[in-house]
């Protein structure tokens, strides 16, 4: 441990110590359940690039629509095109979604989907005075893609760290739950910081081909190679490094084969998925969930990314193309979860780098801060808009320039809500979300936001 950095040392110690510290309560919730009666999954959809979500969830009552239209100018969607939601807020406010989100409106109106308004990365609760006078702790690299896309995954915006929320959750869960042959964190979009823990890392699955296999291994006409590699991995090497590497590769090949065999035996779903990359990714996730018992899986997190949302140009035509793809994929996935009977056990949510400027640059919108996100599933208290939807007037109390809004709900509170639903104990929240106490007291008897009622 001599050269362990302090941060990493503390985190590592925490991760290693988890088994002792939290085994009892975690075991009580997860391990003693049977293979089918306790399963939960979180599905994270990253809209990479910073989706212009102020055109996804739009004020609809006449007065607030007029404010929206005023501030967005040439980026405003015509009111007649919007799809109103079956929801009226406490002050009588109403909302609509983008015309390309018809399937999202259906999910919302059915109670299976909710919006979280003006959510974003915060190092601590921040108001405009503190921002202007530079007295607030702010996220590093605010308004930049790389930092914000990472901080939405780490939920630690004041440091550049290499572990993410789902990774730290998995460190806790796998320290006490029965072993799963495959990592409980499965990515359809390659390694990502969201699912990287101190101990647990993601298992990458391809949206098209499924399990990554050693090229040529076990393939037709490749007996010479396959037999030779088997022999190389079975040999008894003199040094422990080679023995460990051989064991690692052997294990990876075998778990890949296990995974592939399970997926190959997956039932064919009646739900049909579109051929878009996002739908194909979610279809793979549905297949994995359908074989959760074969995989002895009690908990899964999934990660899938869809890029192309950095709409400095052409935000209107591009959103009109891209949002129906998201809506269709969400609806298909939710339908497949209902078909598998796990709608209440699987919660899907979107994240994105940031919201975008309310004001136009003449072609599109630029990097902002707070934005709106969706959360979907049978366990979601849907048909609701959580958080505080800003008043869309120029230079409002949240506006730090051109309609970049200081978030009024933190990413920490959002993940705390999901983590508690997933089975993380309040006493473990500090390990999952190191900054959570700046936004929420884990001992509190109320939920952080309330969307997982």
């Amino acid at each position: 441990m001599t050269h362990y950095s302090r941060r990493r040392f503390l985190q590592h110690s925490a991760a290693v110590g988890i088994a002792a510290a939290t085994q009892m309560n975690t075991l009580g919730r997860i391990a003693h359940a049977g293979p089918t009666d306790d399963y939960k999954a979180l599905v994270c959809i990253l809209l990479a690039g910073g989706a212009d979500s102020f055109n996804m969830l739009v004020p609809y009552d006449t007065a607030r629509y007029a404010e929206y239209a005023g501030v967005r100018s040439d980026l405003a969607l015509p009111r007649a095109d919007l799809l109103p939601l079956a929801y009226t807020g406490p002050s009588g406010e109403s909302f609509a979604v983008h015309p390309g989100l018809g399937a999202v409106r259906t999910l919302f109106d059915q109670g299976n989907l909710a919006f979280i308004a003006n959510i974003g990365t915060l190092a601590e609760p921040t108001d405009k005075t503190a921002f202007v006078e530079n007295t607030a702790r702010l996220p590093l690299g605010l308004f930049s893609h790389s930092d914000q896309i990472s901080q939405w995954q780490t939920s630690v915006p004041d440091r550049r760290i290499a572990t993410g929320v789902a990774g730290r959750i998995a460190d806790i869960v796998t320290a006490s739950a029965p072993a799963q042959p495959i990592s409980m964190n499965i990515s359809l979009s390659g390694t990502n910081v969201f699912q990287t823990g101190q101990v647990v890392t993601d298992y990458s699955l391809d949206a098209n081909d499924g399990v990554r296999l050693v090229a040529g291994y076990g393939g037709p006409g490749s007996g010479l190679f396959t037999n030779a590699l088997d022999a190389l991995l079975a040999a008894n090497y003199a040094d422990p490094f080679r023995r460990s590497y051989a064991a690692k590769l052997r294990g990876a090949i075998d778990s890949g084969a296990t995974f592939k065999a399970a997926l190959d035996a997956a039932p064919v779903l009646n739900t049909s998925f579109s051929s878009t990359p996002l739908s194909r990714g979610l279809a793979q996730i549905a297949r994995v969930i359908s074989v959760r018992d074969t995989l002895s899986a009690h908990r899964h997190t999934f990660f899938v990314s869809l890029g192309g949302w950095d709409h400095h140009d052409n935000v209107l035509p591009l959103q009109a193309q891209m949002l129906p793809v998201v809506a269709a994929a969400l609806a298909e996935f939710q339908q497949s979860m209902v078909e598998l009977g796990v709608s209440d056990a699987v919660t899907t949510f979107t994240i994105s780098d940031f919201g975008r400027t309310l004001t136009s640059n003449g072609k599109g919108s630029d990097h902002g801060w707070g934005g709106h996100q969706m959360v979907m599933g049978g366990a979601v208290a849907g048909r609701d808009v959580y958080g505080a939807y800003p008043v869309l007037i120029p230079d409002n109390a949240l506006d730090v320039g051109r309609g970049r809004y200081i978030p009024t709900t933190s990413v920490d509170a959002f993940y705390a809500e999901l983590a508690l639903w997933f089975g993380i104990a309040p006493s473990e929240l500090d390990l999952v979300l190191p900054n959570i106490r700046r936004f929420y007291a884990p001992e509190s008897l109320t939920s952080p936001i309330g969307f997982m009622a």
Partner: protein
Amino acid sequence: MGRLSLGALLAVAALTLLTACGGGGGGESGAVAPPPPTGPTAAQLESAAELLDVTTFGADYTLVDAVAREGNRAWLERQFTLPPSDHLPIVLRYLNQYGYDINADPSPGLFRRFAWWEQTLTAEDQLRQRVAYALTQIFVVSDNVDVIFINPLALSSYYDMLLGNAFGNFRDLLRAVTLHPVMGVYLSHVNNAKANPATNTFPDENYAREVMQLFSIGLFELNADGTQKRDVDGNPIPTYDNGDIQEFAEIFTGLSYGPRPAGGASFFGNSDPVMHVPMRMFDAFHQGGQKLLLNGGVVPAGQSGLQDIDAAIDNLFNHPNVGPFIGRLLIQRLVTSNPSTAYVARVSAAFAGTGTGAPRGDMKAVLRAVLLDPEAASGIHLREPFLRFVAMNRILHATSDDDTYPAVGYIAQFLVQQHVLSAPSVFNFYSPAFSPAGELGRAGLVSPEFQISTDSTVVGLADLVAFAIYGDQSIDTPTGFTKIRLDLTDLEALAGNADALIDRIDLLFTAGTMDAATRATIRGAITPIANDAPARTRLALYLALIAPAYAVTG
């Protein structure tokens, strides 16, 4: 037909090997010419290959033979005298050719990758390049920060700074790292202003912490042999506390971007990054007053900002931890994961200048101690997956039609989660103290590189090897740029004799250490493939390069 083409990156996983078809030359009848009587012995060749394995990015037979003739020590000393092959001129060449439009496809930000690959594959000053690479994993910065990625000058300038200081003095290296704008961005001490009581703001502590924790002295007081000192209660002794960090944070205030070489404004708070000239001190924004350093050092009030920084660098440089702390990191990056305390102590002594005739911090003295130590010959560490990919391309003569190397390396990064100057955080791709679960962990051994050896990446590495050996290019280049391919003709000429082929692969990749079982397995796999030298060569390479025998050095 031993070749396969790749439709797309993701098709890698679907590759199938077709190894049993006929065609091509070779065959068992090809006899190998005996070595000329004046050539180096097998032992000399293997000794040279072993040195080159840790001092270059990979050596082909020509280089191994030349070093065997020249002698290891003489070659090493000559490497110390070669001038640096800088990367920035290559970036400028591409910018001249393609312009500097940050919205272009490919992004000019990729030119720094082109430059890295070109010099790494072709430059003669391999030791300097290899040491600079090791330093990128100590003084970590990364293109995963946008403003660093999009500026094609940023990371090449940073790398050139490491190249220029690799054989100099550690003090100058630490100072140059501190003042480089890429580090200023990465650890946020660029535009870091002095405290403002009116707004209750304080200097950013980020760099102050990491320069101590990661770049110089580490967290705990060390003995010269790298073991931790203990207090009377047997506890490790922290090297600094948060109060020290606040004092150092005051030191690192007042820096902003320097002027562009072409002229233009330079002012504190400038948000237009100039990434290839050292940061400039603006004393009006530097925290005045006295600062307390470590071990009783004091910076008096009234000095200029750069005088303060020099005093702080001196204070850290002279801390007794630097020799064992940095020495051990260099040993791990170049030679072995678990050096003995005696080995660390010998490197510490070299750092201190004991018996070398060189001043404290002389990097050549430190590198000689690291590379020529008696333990170095039996050094064991898991090879970095990215370095395996680089070595494969160098040893197997990666070439292009026009002698440029516009390589991107995204396929490698996708499959093995590693590429130079692209770490996920300042804590590098792995911790120097990472001890994997299982046999190594139970034995108390560390293996940093195991931290990125996941189920996905160990399979991905095999796919990466297959991609390069069986695909129609060995490193990905952007559409419209020349392709880079391996040239296996040397090996194919030996393929008629399985033992000759395996001998050569063993010499070049494993310095003659390949165990008998591995050799027998590879021989057994290729022997049934008659009269197809390309297929034999490729299968032998594929197996050898994913075998445990090659995955680990020594």
